[in-house]
């Protein structure tokens, strides 16, 4: 599903050029659950931004679903993104002015789903995330765990093929954290590909494979569970 080859990303200020990604290469198969680990500043978040089509690489190739997307402009990236990728952030990134329902509804509005259909799908996903009773609340009125559940609901409401999670349990206590990890595992088992950036060895163990990074490069790769692709990779 994802194949990156010699991916490069620099951040330049007036005086220094920092290399965030240094000829990074790896593949992720459809349905896989991959954890990316490494110390702060090793390039994990940059990688996630590029994989999520939020940012463009400075060099190398990025093939998403068989299409080279490295040179895509913002509009094309946005289009691809909204139909295929869901995001879960450490800080939830819910919009304070919108209710739980409206937050989850947002991706459906942008993909042009009709109101009736939107309501049905949002209700379904809220039900699944067990947060239906909070649908009219605003984010500030929820606990951290509840907020992250809403964020996960928002990430999956469009049935994306890929979920990118950036430290999804970083702001949660352990029991709420475990709940979120269980949720992600369930989604993965239902077929969604997940790439998760994390500092937590505990969370990483939920994945099939751990990629460890340092200074923008891949250092090691540990396969925890042999993942058998349901489709044949070409």
């Amino acid at each position, binding site marked *: 599903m994802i194949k990156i080859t010699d991916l490069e990303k620099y951040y330049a200020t007036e005086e220094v050029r920092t290399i965030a990604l240094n000829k990074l290469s790896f593949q992720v198969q459809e349905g896989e659950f991959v954890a990316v680990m490494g110390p702060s500043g090793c390039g994990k978040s940059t990688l996630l*931004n590029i994989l*999520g089509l*939020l*940012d463009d690489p400075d060099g190398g190739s990025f093939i998403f679903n068989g299409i080279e997307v490295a040179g895509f402009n*913002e*509009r094309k990236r*946005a*289009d691809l*993104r*909204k*139909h295929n990728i869901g*995001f879960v*952030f450490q800080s939830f*990134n*819910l*919009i*304070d*002015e*919108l209710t739980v329902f*409206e937050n989850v509804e*947002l*991706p459906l*509005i*942008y*993909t042009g789903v009709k109101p009736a259909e939107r309501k049905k799908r949002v209700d379904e996903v809220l039900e699944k995330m067990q947060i239906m009773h909070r649908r009219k609340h605003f984010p500030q009125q929820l606990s951290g765990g509840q907020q992250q559940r809403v964020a996960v609901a*928002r990430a999956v409401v469009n049935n994306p093929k890929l979920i990118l999670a950036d430290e999804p349990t970083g702001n949660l206590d352990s029991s709420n954290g475990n709940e979120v990890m269980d949720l992600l595992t369930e989604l993965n088992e239902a077929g969604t590909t997940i790439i998760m950036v994390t500092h937590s060895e505990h969370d990483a163990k939920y994945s099939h494979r751990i990629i460890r990074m340092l200074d923008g490069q891949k250092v090691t790769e540990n396969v925890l569970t042999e993942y058998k692709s349901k489709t044949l990779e070409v």
Partner: protein
Amino acid sequence: MFRNYIKIAWRSLRKNTLTSSLSLAGLVVGVISFLLLGTYILNELRYDRFNEKADRIVYVNYSYKSPSDAEATISRYTPTAVAPVAKREFFEVEDAVRVYKYDRREVEIDGKNFTERNMILADASILNIFSFDFLNGNSKSALNKPNAVILTQTTATRYFGAQPALGKSVVINDNVWEVTGVIEDNLPYSSLQFDLLGSYQSSKRAEREIWNSANDHSYLLLKDAQQRTQVEQKFNAFVQKEFEEDFQAGFKMHFDFVPLNEDHLSAEASGNLKTYLFILGALAVLLLTIAAINFTNLMTAKSVERLREIGVRKVMGAPRKSLIAQFLTEAGVIIVLAIMIGTLGALALLPTFNNLTGLNISLASWDWSYFVITLVVLLCSTTLLAGGWPALILSRFKPATALKNNTSSLSKSGSVRKLLIVFQFTVSVVFIIGTLVAKRQLDYIKDTDTGLDRSNVVVVDANGMSQQTVESFKNALLASQSISNVTTSSHTPVDMQGGYSIQVNGQESGISITAAPVDKDYVTTLDMHVIAGSNFNETDKMQVKVASEERTYAFMLNETAANKLGFTPEEAIGKAVNLNGRAGYVKGVLQDFNFVSLHQKITPVALFAEYDWSAKVLIKVQGNTAQALSEIQQVWKAFKPDSAITYSFLDQDYQNLYESEQRTAKILNVFAAITILISCLGLFGLSVFMAAQRKKEIGIRKVLGASIAQITYLLSISFLKLIVIALCVAMPLAWYITTTWLQDFAYKISDPYELYFLAGGIAITIALLTLSIQAIKAAIANPVKSLRTE
């Protein structure tokens, strides 16, 4: 989707109460000011245009010059012959009307007395030429007979209450008149303003067509507006032919046909009004711009906090245009609210505005469709300006950057914001300086010693009294305790006109001079200062009664005249002179005095003692003015029982020379204050925002030992710098504008530089006060709190 935008807009409005209400308040004040000033300007621009035939109506201005005059005198009044001759002799003229001010009439209805100051007489054709809304009576024939009078609705109600007025009799100056019509009150933007409109035939004036005196306003209705210049030329050619001999002798008469629609703004009708309207128009637009700038600044400032939201929306796939639409909607919601509140506010404040300006304008000056268009344009332009800028800036961010809430890349919009603050304060300071300078100049005009004392002088129109009657009238007045002096003249020192030329015997040529025949006590009544020679006496006055070849006139010159003739005041005394055939000698020299508005320089003046030129009686009163007035009226009744007295106060007449200046100054005062208020609202909003943004920084600095004063300084200095820059821009600009305006006055205050510093001081003080409220609040906040929230 749009509903979604509105919903978000409403919620974010309610969430950010302070910024929202600041932007809203600024915009509301801006809209109110814009509508009030706009109404005022429109009122002036739309003058008379409501008349259905307005584009074909011309107003006749009259200018004349005698052989000795250096320049022609332009008059708004025309001889009684003009209108009937124009209609009779020129087929291009469809109709013509004379309007005669028939003011200060005593009206009696069933034993009740009313003094009417606002009655006019006009030919019946006025009903054909101008548009009136008749409530009762025949709109075509109401003025077809003598002693027919049309009342405005207010006058009719005043006279007869709820009773129908039509057909009733009223006694005007002891004659019985019949009410033949009742019309809606005059529109405030009509140049015809009256309470009673009588038929011209009621006056003896109608009996003769004369050319040698001018007291009517004449209006012509042309068949085709395009023919105006052509008819004007033909008419003047006709007059020249008619008075061929006079023209050959050097007399000149000229009639200008001014389109009615242009007349009100012409220099003849209203002086500098056009310029002042331009200034006020600029003020209206600038005020609104400043309010919109506040709004833009607060929106951009505030929207930085929403960068994360924008990031999230982008991640969810929001296209850029949808974000732009969202910001525009949010701006639009506030602006719609502001326009609604502002329109109501303008309606509510209109009476106060009218009170202030002494006008009677109404929102009815607006054509309804224009009003709506203006509001829509206002809405769209302000929304684009205030919502468009933040929308463009913020929607440009890459989602990854936006999510990090990285505001450092927003520094660009910060510099635009700074530029906008500089602009606001530049405008404010220019207005402060302008207002201060205008006030000082107008005070200068009011208080400056113009060489004579205009206070407590009542000017009574002698209204055709014979010279003997005038003398007795004078003596009767002087018997009163409350009258200290009485004199007569053809002109008061406010409207002295007339070009003569004076020549010293033995010199080759003379000089042009303004001259007026006066009574012997003119100089003492007006407290003019004799600097050489002596004042007129009875002998001087009686000398001119002798046979013309033996007549010797006594002259008093002003200092300028003496100098122009080449003498010091002392040398001039006794010199034999000749003024347009009047031989005589210089008896005295007066200190220069102003006899026209201070727009004009003092020119040479000669007063000469005369016996029979008593159009105006000037009465110096002492003690209780009301008491004196009633005594004057009693004496008048004894002499002229059948005509009402016409009087005015000399100092008021003088003030009226500056009517448009005074009014503009009043309006400027108020709106300059509003400009500063709105600018400060914006500054306050921004300082609140900046303090919030630098909360963490302030916390850290405080933990590290910064004092409250240091923090306050830190927060205020960047704004203060901007205000200093604004001062530097504003001062030369204000200098240019005020100097240009002052050039219009021959007598003016000299470079009032201290006012510039005063204005600068005011601006900085107000800005500092505004800023310090927030800076001190931020500085004394507990740093632990601000650090914890991060």
